[in-house]
């Protein structure tokens, strides 16, 4: 569904990504594991149209070339990003954030049913409709961010380190919700530091180092891969 090939990103003279290729399918969770500064955020931002990709990059969504489109048009193609730091409208209410999520033309027809789905996933958001988002806890704001992204009816949901700053318990809940989202048919591209939890829910994973993909495998294989265990799972076997 989403196919990225030969993606390059530069900030001035600094090359953040080079020759990156990957794909994400419907109903599937792909996780991107990599250390700080490896280029994970740059990858998501390039796909979302927030940072420009280098010439030679090819990004296709449902067969259509989307590289070079403005960010707001990429949402219309079915890609939603939950950015680092969430990017919610803190001054606005939960309800307004979710309504804005359905601003995309592709989402308007099904707004009511999508809202039902979001409320089912995160009942807290239904209870707190009128609350200003900046007054909510980090975990609740993350629900707003994910709910808002779902409201655009994406085929692919991209999340940039959603568990950052959440307690272990809240992170567990979050990953459970992501699994349910994938089961209801959305494709997910997840960037995470929390390798243990994310590999548990993922179908496939990529390893990224210094701006290049260095490995790709099923999540099961990655969990048992000694290199992955050493680098991301604290040197000992995660409870696979």
């Amino acid at each position, binding site marked *: 569904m989403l196919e990225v090939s030969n993606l390059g990103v530069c900030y001035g003279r600094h090359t953040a990504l080079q020759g990156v290729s990957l794909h994400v399918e419907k109903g599937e969770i792909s996780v991107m594991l990599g250390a700080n500064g490896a280029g994970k955020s740059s990858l998501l931002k390039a796909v979302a149209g*927030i940072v420009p990709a280098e010439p030679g990059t090819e990004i296709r969504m449902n067969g259509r070339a989307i590289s070079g489109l403005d960010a*707001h048009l990429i949402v219309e193609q079915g890609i939603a990003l939950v950015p680092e730091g969430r990017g919610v*409208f*803190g001054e606005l209410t939960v309800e*307004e954030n979710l309504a804005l999520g359905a*601003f*995309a033309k592709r*989402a308007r027809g099904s707004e009511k049913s999508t809202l039902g789905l979001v409320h089912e996933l995160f009942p807290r958001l239904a209870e707190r409709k009128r609350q200003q988002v900046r007054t909510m806890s980090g975990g609740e704001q993350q629900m707003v961010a994910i709910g808002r*992204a779902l409201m*655009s009816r994406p085929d692919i949901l991209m999340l940039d380190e959603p568990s950052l700053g959440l307690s272990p318990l809240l992170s567990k809940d979050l990953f459970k919700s992501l699994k349910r989202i994938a089961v209801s048919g959305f494709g997910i591209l997840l960037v995470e530091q929390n390798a243990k939890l994310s590999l548990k829910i993922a179908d496939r994973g990529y390893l990224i180092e210094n701006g290049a993909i260095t490995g790709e495998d099923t999540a099961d294989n990655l969990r048992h891969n000694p290199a992955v265990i050493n680098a991301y799972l604290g040197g000992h076997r995660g409870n696979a």
Partner: protein
Amino acid sequence: MQIIVTGTLLGGTYALIALGLTLQYGAARIMNLANGETLVAAGFVAFWLFTALGVNPLLGMVLIAPMALALNWLIYAWLLRPLVRRAKNRGMLEVDSILATFGLLFLFQGLMLLGFGGGYFSYKFLAEPFLILGEPYGLNRVVAFVAAVIVASLLYLFLYHTRQGTAVRAVAVDPASARLVAIDVARTAAFAFALGGALTACGGILLSTFYTFNASMGVIFTMKALIIVIMGGVGDVRGATLAALILGITETAVASLIDPGLTLAANYALFVLVLLFRPQGILGRASA
């Protein structure tokens, strides 16, 4: 009591003018120093429609507001968008837009001086007394106030109860996130700028029904609008409305209790007080 009523009536029109500026600055990030010229130009058109064609200024508003919308859209598209494109950050856009609209101010003022000369203009519209609590007030001021309330309510409904209006607010608070929900930030900013111009024009038309104006008076109203916007908190629609009423009442009080020549001085005194004690705006919360 009379002071409060007169001041409130005046504040209604001020509110429209300031709402125009706050939309342009809050959502489009353009500090439009030529805002007052839009106001005066709209006053002149209303004057001309009324004296030459006998068009009621309230009806004139229905004609002039869309024209102001279109004109401000063109100004944004031709003059300001290149600045938006090349600006690396918000500060740079602010400096550039202040310089550009400062130039625009002189251009418009010159054109109006050319067309109408430097003399003072006014026309008689509903210049009859209207009783409120037994005291007489100009009916034109009362009608202008009611019209201002209606226009401001429509704006409020738009901003708070429609998807497009919510998008305008989203762009005002966080343009980087707005694009993530499929909002075309560039277009929305242009629209907000144009809508702001239309609101200010409405304020100018209403003002012209009871106020004597001339071609070079725009600057004073830009200053007043600026003071109201900063008092109310930048981009805060409710704050600006409240600040406009406070300004209207203060001006009226100073003019009738002390001296009419001191109204501008009172404006600045109020402004300095707000900057000293509530720099985040009268309703605003301290920002992080």
